[in-house]
C-alpha cells in the first residue's frame, strides 16, 4: 500500500474537564503535523507538551474537541501502536498474547500461527514464547510490545517512548527493529526524550510545547541551526 500522507493532523484541539467543578484544561491548542510515508518521525517535547495526547486522539482513544486527524489508511487495520510503559496480560504467554492480537485482526489458523512465530523470531523472543508475560524483563516486554504493534504488518507505526527504561542492549535491539521497518518502507512515528536516539533514527522531527507544534522539519534542518540536536531542542522549547 502506498500512502499519500501517513499521518496528517490539522488544527487539533483537545480540552479535558478535571476536578469536581469540571474545570476545563486545554491540552492541545491547535496541533498541526504532517508525517510523510517512509518517514521515521520523532515527536519531541517536554513532559506535558501533548505528545501522547496527540497520538491517542489519532488512534481514537480520545476524542478531538476540534480539528482533524487523517491516518492516511482506512481505519486502524494498517496502524500499529506501542503505548508508553506498556502492560500486557500477564496470565498469557508471549505466544498466546501475539495470537490474541493476531485474532483481533482476523488472522486465523495457519496464517495466525505463521505470523506469530515469525514475529517471535523477529524480536528475538522465540525461546521465551511459552513463558508467561509476568516473567518477562522490561526489555522483553518492550520487544513483545513492538511485536504486537507489528502483528498486522502496519504501514504506520506509532511508538510512545519505545526506548524508555531499556538497558543499552534493549535500546540497540529496539533501534534495529525501527531501522528494519524503515528499510522495508514503513512509516514510524515515535515520541522520545532521548535525543541521541532521535538523531540516530529520525528523518524528520516535530517539537511540541504546551499543546502546540512549535517547530517541524528534517533533522538536517535542525542541525543547520545548532551544533547538536540537544542545543536546538533547548533553543526551541525555551524560546
Amino acid at each position, binding site marked *: 500500500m502506498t500512502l499519500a500522507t501517513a499521518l496528517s493532523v490539522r488544527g487539533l484541539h483537545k480540552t479535558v474537564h478535571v476536578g469536581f467543578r469540571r474545570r476545563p484544561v486545554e491540552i492541545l491548542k491547535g496541533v498541526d503535523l504532517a508525517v510523510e510515508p517512509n518517514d521515521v518521525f520523532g515527536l519531541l517535547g517536554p513532559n506535558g507538551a501533548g505528545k501522547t495526547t496527540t497520538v*491517542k486522539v489519532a*488512534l*481514537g*482513544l*480520545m*476524542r478531538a474537541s476540534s480539528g482533524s486527524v487523517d491516518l492516511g489508511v482506512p*481505519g*486502524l*487495520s494498517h*496502524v*500499529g*501502536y506501542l*503505548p508508553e510503559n*506498556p*502492560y*500486557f*496480560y500477564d*496470565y*498469557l504467554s508471549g505466544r*498466546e498474547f501475539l495470537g*490474541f*492480537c493476531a*485474532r*483481533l*485482526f*482476523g488472522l*486465523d489458523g495457519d496464517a495466525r500461527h505463521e505470523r506469530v512465530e515469525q514475529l517471535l523470531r523477529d524480536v528475538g523472543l522465540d525461546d521465551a514464547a511459552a513463558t508467561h508475560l509476568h516473567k518477562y524483563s522490561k526489555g522483553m516486554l518492550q520487544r513483545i510490545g513492538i511485536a*504486537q504493534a507489528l502483528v*498486522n504488518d502496519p504501514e504506520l507505526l*506509532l511508538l510512545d517512548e519505545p526506548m524508555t527504561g531499556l538497558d543499552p542492549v534493549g535500546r540497540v535491539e529496539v533501534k534495529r527493529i525501527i531501522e528494519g521497518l524503515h528499510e522495508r518502507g514503513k512509516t514510524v512515528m515515535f515520541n522520545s526524550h532521548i535525543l541521541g536516539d532521535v538523531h540516530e533514527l529520525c528523518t524528520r522531527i516535530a517539537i511540541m510545547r504546551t499543546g502546540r507544534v512549535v517547530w517541524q522539519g528534517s533533522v538536517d534542518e535542525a542541525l543547520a541551526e545548532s551544533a547538536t540536536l540537544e542545543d536546538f531542542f533547548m533553543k526551541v522549547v525555551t524560546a
Partner: protein
Amino acid sequence: MNQVVAVTINTFKETIRDRVLAVIVVFALLMIAGGLWLGSISLGEQGRMMKDFGLVALTVFGLIVAVFVAAGLVHKEVEKRTVFILFSKPVSRTAFIAGKFVGLCGTMAVVIAGMGLFLFVLVWIVAGQASGTLLLAVVMIYVQLLAVMAVTILFSTLGSAILAAVLGICVFVAGQLSHNVLALTRLGKNPLTEVLSWVIYVVIPNLSAVDIKAGAVGEQTLAWAQIGLWVAYLLAYLVVALALAAVIFRRKEF
C-alpha cells in the same frame, strides 16, 4: 465477529486462570460437601437436606464469583491500560463488552457445572438417586447469574468496581424479592408504594421466576412453559443491559 471471539477467548483464559477463583470454588465445594453433615443430623431427610443446602451454597458462591469477576472485568483493562492495546486495533467497544460477557459466561459455565455435578454426585451417594430436576435447578441458577453479570458489567461502566459488585448483589437480592414485595404492596392499597414496587418489579430482573430450587427438592410442581418464557425474558433483559453498557462505554476516553 473475530474481535468478539478473540476477546471472549482472552477473557475466558483470564478468569479461569485466576487463582482467587480456584480458591473460591474449592471453598464452595467444601461447603456443598458440608451438606453431608447437615443431612446426617436431619431425621430421614438426608437427601432433601443435601439438595437444599447444596443449591443454596452453589447460588451464594456462584453469585460471589459472578459479581466480583464481572465488576472487575472492564475496570482491570482500563486500570492496567491494556485498553490501549485493544482499542488501537480495529476492536469496537461493543465487541469488547460482548466478548467480555461471553468469556465470563464460559468461565461461569465451567464453575457452575463443576459445582452442580459435584452436588449431583453427592445427592446420588446420599439418597441412592438424583433427579434431572436437580441439574435443571443448577441451570436456572446459571441463567439468573447471567442476568446479574450483565447488570454488574453495566454498573461497572458507570462507577467503581466495588460499587458495581455491591449493586450487583443488591440486584440479585431484589430480583429474588421484587414479586413478593409487589404482591404485598397490592394488599396494602397504598397507591404510592404500589407504584414504587411496580417500578422496582419492572426495572429489576425477576430472578425468582426461574428459581426452581423448591421444585428440585420436591416442594413445588414446575410449569415448564412459563419458566421457558421467563428464561427468554431474562435473556432479553441481559441483552438490553449489555447494549446500555456498550453505549456508555463508547463514550469513554482513555
